């Protein structure tokens, strides 16, 4: 499983099926929480994750597609669109330092 030091994270991508609905919602949430950090937060369709993304978050039901698109990328699956511990963990790691595992 790939992993990344949180200090190396420059771009965090949140992916959903179409890249237009739920990912936009979560991305705007995460953006607010990461205000003040230099991390760029983007939302994309899960089949079009940009190559320069460092960490990808998507629902567990879509994680397999994300891994197929970007096999070497750190992909963090979550299950709840609000208050998921996996999402909180990534945000905390970026804010306070640590390793993010895919």
């Amino acid at each position, binding site marked *: 499983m790939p992993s990344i030091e949180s200090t190396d994270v420059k771009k965090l991508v949140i992916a959903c099926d179409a890249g237009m609905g739920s990912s936009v919602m979560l991305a705007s949430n995460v953006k607010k929480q990461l205000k003040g950090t230099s991390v760029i937060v983007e939302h994309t369709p*899960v089949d079009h994750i940009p190559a320069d993304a460092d960490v990808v978050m998507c*629902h567990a039901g879509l994680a397999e597609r994300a891994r197929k698109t970007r096999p070497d990328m750190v992909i963090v699956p979550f299950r*709840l*669109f609000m208050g998921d511990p*996996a999402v909180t*963990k990534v945000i*905390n790691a970026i804010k306070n330092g*640590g390793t993010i595992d895919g």
Partner: protein
Amino acid sequence: METTFTPTVEGAGVKATIQRIGGYLAGMVMPNIGAFIAWGLITAAFIPTGWIPNTKLATLVGPIITYLLPLLIGYTGGKMVHGQRGAVIGAIATMGVIVGSSVPMFLGAMIMGPLAAYLLLKFDRAFEDKIKSGFEMLVGNYSIGIIGGGLALLGVWVIGPVVTHLTNWMGSGVHSLITHHVIPLAAVIIEPAKVLFLNNAINHGVLDVLGGAAAKGASHKSILFMLEANPGPGLGVLLAYWFFGPKALRPSAPGAIIIHFFGGIHEIYFPYILMKPRLILATICGGAAGIAVFSATGVGLVAPASPGSIFAFITETPKGDYIGMFLGVIVAAGVSLIVASALLGFGRGPDVSDSEALTDAQDRNRKAKAESKIAVPTGAL
């Protein structure tokens, strides 16, 4: 059963493949939903039975659905395969099937756009090293012109008529489902597929195409736009969680309800079903009941409701269909709420709510914490 949190209905690889193909179809339509909505609003306003009938402005209705919408789909489909060049040739090829047919060519556009772009991609790959310096632009433009023009001719003569038959055939299939009152059974497929993240694939990959063809008819509306997008069934499940769900999850329900019902992001309720998969029965029953009401009252929407918000339903309901529309949404929510509440044991009884889902959630939290302890070096948290 209830502890399986992630959908594993089929072999995992199969699921991702179906999602991917469906996502591909939906991906051609979804970026263009704004144009569908413009068409729907113009239709609802200016057709003879609309809010402010206007024969001059109503002339927009036909050309938008005949030309603009299929061209946008073909353009987008081509772009997904081969960038800007693919987009252009996709639109040219789509024009062929439009002219060669008598029905809205959404299906034809979904075939011709990517196909044309794929052929151009193959051509470009084959010749990229063989073009003499200085001739790149000439070859680039004429390859699109010649291949695209040829595909447009092929579309007029062969593919357009074939897809017309295919579209008519599917349309009459759907029509007979509606006239024989079995259309509510569509919920048996739609609702489980939704929570497996096939929601866009079904709604925009399939139902928009069939609905668009149906909505070109005299009624200017289609029930097919309502099948997947109805926010009622999901609302019922979220309400049930709010009243009777595991105590730890109850506080999250009102926020989810706003996002789901008013914002139209249905994905927000999928996890609530995935953590107690038997609740799928609630959305199936709710969805079927809603469709039955829509069908019995003969209502439809003028364009796809996307996102599936109640506001989208309200703005795309034609004049005179409001009672049936609201009734269908309310009945769907009500039935779904009752079934979901029963499945949640009304918050008490031996099957006390907090059982599986919460312990499961706690397990995950514990596991996540344990993982973070291993993964995060000292001083990290």
